[in-house]
């Protein structure tokens, strides 16, 4: 078509593949695990990063090559589509986590809608004070006191397998029992533990599953936010009655011999004062909501991922079987390799310049823990699961982090003032639960036939940025 203005049509022409998709829901092709889709290059060879990948199915199953691009080329990546800055290197994230003033957690807000007023959105002394309200019950001697209860819960659950009739969960053939470890153990085990330490009656456990599932999948930004709000309201209605009862009559945790160890957390919260006054029921509910949300999914994922990764690496599994003390290393390496929590949002209180990128004050900065844990600047050969690696700290979890003799802490629990308050109890649940599991499971191996498959229909589904959802194990009965 002649126009008399020869440039007009040329410059409006669009490359066909992109013109066909004006939206942000581009279907990126699924790549072999570990390989990134080619999103184009700058003239100097720098790979381009299309922010739409962050919401794609490809990214969810195969995130690490994309994080590597960010770490290597855009350590502070400004995602203009989602109005977010991503920080992906270990050192940068560590510095930000320790700078509670400059990189505040307020107003994160995406969780407050569902969880309520928790310390997640607070900083400084205000944060510490509220965190300590319940955090103190999850560490040190308080935690040690709870270990027998954790062990008992694990035993009770495993011994109940004989009575399970659902063959998709437990089945037996030719002297081999097949269990789906999620349904049979890992989904419910952390919930039972949290229920017990909180002081919920046993009959609350079914509701508990509903609360934590709905609340965690209903955080702000999700498509199931409404369900999250409803679950939170349901929890609040339920807790109100418990709290009223505990205010009058506190309840206790007991050891094996039936002696009281300490009050449960709700009873403790009922007698806690802030600024001279008792916590309101709403405040207690919010703290409970956080424990409910934080105490379920993450530990479930840690147990399943740990067993999956160990059984995928039989020589490492064998080593753990022969040396009980290696469970700690296995737990930490699992969380480094594939944790359940991808990162934490921060807002910069002031204008900052990082790696030449000016970030205006108040911007949302996502600290990508997944990426920090796979930062080759800190962890050699980061995509490899290796419980014997000499660059990972596997000792007691420290709020101050760890950086000695070439070993560093992983970032799955964060570090600094906002380090996950459930880190220690989560560690104990996963390790103690696994020790007991191992006693019952003779010659365990993955039943690959039943496991979810990747797109090729043959290889097992990659872990990606979601934990193993189901883990089918075979073990010998005799």
């Amino acid at each position, binding site marked *: 078509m*002649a*126009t*008399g*203005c020869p*440039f*007009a*049509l*040329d*410059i*409006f022409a*669009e490359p066909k593949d*992109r013109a066909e*998709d*004006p*939206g*942000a*829901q581009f279907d990126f092709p699924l790549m072999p695990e570990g390989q990134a889709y080619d*999103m184009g290059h*700058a003239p100097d060879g720098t790979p*381009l*990063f*299309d*922010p739409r990948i962050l*919401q794609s199915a490809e990214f969810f199953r195969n995130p690490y090559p994309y994080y590597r691009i960010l770490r290597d080329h855009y350590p502070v990546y*400004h995602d*203009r*589509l*989602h*109005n*977010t800055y991503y920080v992906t290197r270990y050192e940068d994230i560590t510095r930000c986590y320790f*700078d509670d*003033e400059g990189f*505040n957690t*307020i*107003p994160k*807000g*995406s969780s*407050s*809608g569902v969880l*309520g*007023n928790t310390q997640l959105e*607070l*900083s*400084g*002394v*205000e944060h510490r004070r509220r965190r300590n309200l319940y955090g103190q019950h999850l560490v040190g001697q308080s935690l040690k006191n709870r270990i027998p209860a954790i062990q008992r819960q694990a035993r009770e659950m495993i011994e109940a397998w004989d009575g399970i009739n659902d063959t998709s969960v437990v089945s037996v053939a030719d002297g081999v029992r097949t269990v789906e470890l999620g349904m049979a153990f890992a989904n419910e085990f952390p919930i039972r533990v949290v229920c017990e330490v909180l002081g919920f009656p046993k009959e609350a456990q079914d509701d508990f599953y509903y609360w934590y599932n709905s609340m965690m999948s209903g955080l702000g*930004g*999700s498509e199931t*936010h*409404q369900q999250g*709000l409803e679950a939170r309201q349901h929890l609040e209605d339920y807790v109100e009655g418990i709290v009223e009862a505990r205010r009058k009559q506190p309840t206790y945790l007991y050891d094996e011999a039936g002696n009281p160890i300490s009050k449960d957390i709700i009873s403790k919260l009922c007698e806690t004062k802030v600024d001279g006054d008792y916590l309101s029921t*709403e405040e207690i509910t919010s703290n409970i909501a956080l424990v409910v949300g934080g105490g379920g999914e993450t530990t479930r994922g840690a147990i399943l991922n740990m067993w999956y990764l160990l059984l995928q690496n039989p020589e490492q599994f064998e080593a753990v079987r022969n040396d009980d003390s290696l469970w700690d290393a296995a737990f930490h390496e699992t969380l480094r390799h594939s944790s359940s929590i991808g990162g934490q949002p921060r*807002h*910069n*209180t*002031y204008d*900052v310049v*990082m790696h030449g990128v000016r970030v*205006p004050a*108040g911007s949302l900065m996502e600290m990508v823990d997944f990426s920090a844990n796979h930062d080759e600047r800190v962890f050699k050969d980061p995509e490899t699961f290796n419980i014997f690696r000499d660059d990972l700290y596997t000792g007691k979890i420290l709020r101050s982090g760890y950086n000695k003799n070439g070993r560093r802490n992983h970032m799955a629990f964060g570090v600094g003032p906002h380090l996950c308050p459930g880190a220690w109890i989560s560690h104990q649940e996963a390790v103690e639960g696994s020790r007991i599991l191992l006693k019952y499971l003779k010659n365990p191996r993955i039943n690959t036939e039943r496991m979810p498959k990747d797109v090729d229909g043959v290889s097992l589904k990659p872990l990606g940025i979601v934990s193993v959802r189901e883990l089918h194990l075979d073990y010998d009965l005799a």
Partner: protein
Amino acid sequence: MTESGLTVIGANGVAIPEGTHGDAGFRTYEVFQRERVGQSTAKIKPAQLVSREFADDPYPLLAILRENYPCYRDWLNNCFWITRYNDVTSVFTDDANFETRPKAWRLGIEGFGRDLRAALPVLTAQADAWDANCRRLAEAAIADFARRGEADLATEFAARLNMQLWLAMLDVPAETAPQVAALLWRLHRGVSWDPHVRLEGMAAADELATELAPLLEVRRQAPGSDLISAVAGLELADGPAQPKDLVATLLEMDFETLHGALANLWLALLSRAEEFDKVRGDSRYVKLAVLEAFRHSTPVIAAPRFARHEVERFGRLIPKGGLLLCSAAAANRDPRIFADPDRFIAGRKDICHREARGQYRADGLAMGITPGLGPPTMHPAVPEDRPRSLYALTRDALVTASTALLEALDDMALADEAKPPSAICRRLGEMHACWHLPVRFRAR
């Protein structure tokens, strides 16, 4: 890494900003509590707001926001959507609490050059160039396709006229015009989330500075009446204007509204026989149709504003740095302001016939918000020594061009009634416009 200016108090080392309860701040429980119970997302999913569906036709989704969640917290895209007319204008005019970040920041070339748009000679040069050339260039474009009996009005008329007005405004020599046009297009399109076009835009900024540098020098010595001469002649405190200043200025100028609104206007007219008849029958209606096009199908559907500090508005806590996407498209179809807002009515009774100036709406009526043309000025009258507003300038260019089209062609109709064209965003965040408008006609 940070600058704080804090006073440290207390043995525990906790620092509180001096003389304020704010910046590093702590929230009250009360505010969060209100947020928690205040809103759910049941009627819309945030992913829909970055979907193909939204890019194709944002109006149904924006209506859901406007009627249910007037300040919608979009967690996926980390912004607040403001969709009611009075809310949008209040944020546009509230510079105490909100700011518009320059396109240079959005493109990623912050500090590239100085934005000289506000200088009077620059404003005057643009107004003079558009007034002097609009009719001539519109007629030239029409002459090129008139004899064919068919044309694509979106590309051959709307896009071309916009581009040629820019070239005339810069007085670019014919031999370099195609190159400069392509660079201008890439530069403006580069203000995007898409890394491909952004990279092109960044490169275009450099190339354009190189391309225009000789012209800037020549015009410094021998000025004409064009915009480059106006920039070259500015006496600036920190030295004479450089090529990068010129490019930075061009980047911040509106590049979309004339193009998009002209295409959308003609799409609306050719799709509605009754309205087209009005315009054909009475030239007074051309201006009214233009005003209605600004309202009914504004090409820039939302404009970003950022909170300068934490502020409570619309029943929500807007954090410092929070992004408010002020949707002109949603506001312009707010039934609280405009009767039967989805209908295109040339000559509607409830629209202001001139730029309604912020809170001082001249006749109590609202106008079609066109974010590309900047917020309505707060002042009720334009100072006499300044050219008329960009809103008026663009309106007049649209009237002039459309009048030329009406005078030159008869029996205009969509080329294929069975497949009517529509307005879309070709890429999410780009202008919402009719990109192809095939028509048939008879030349007079």
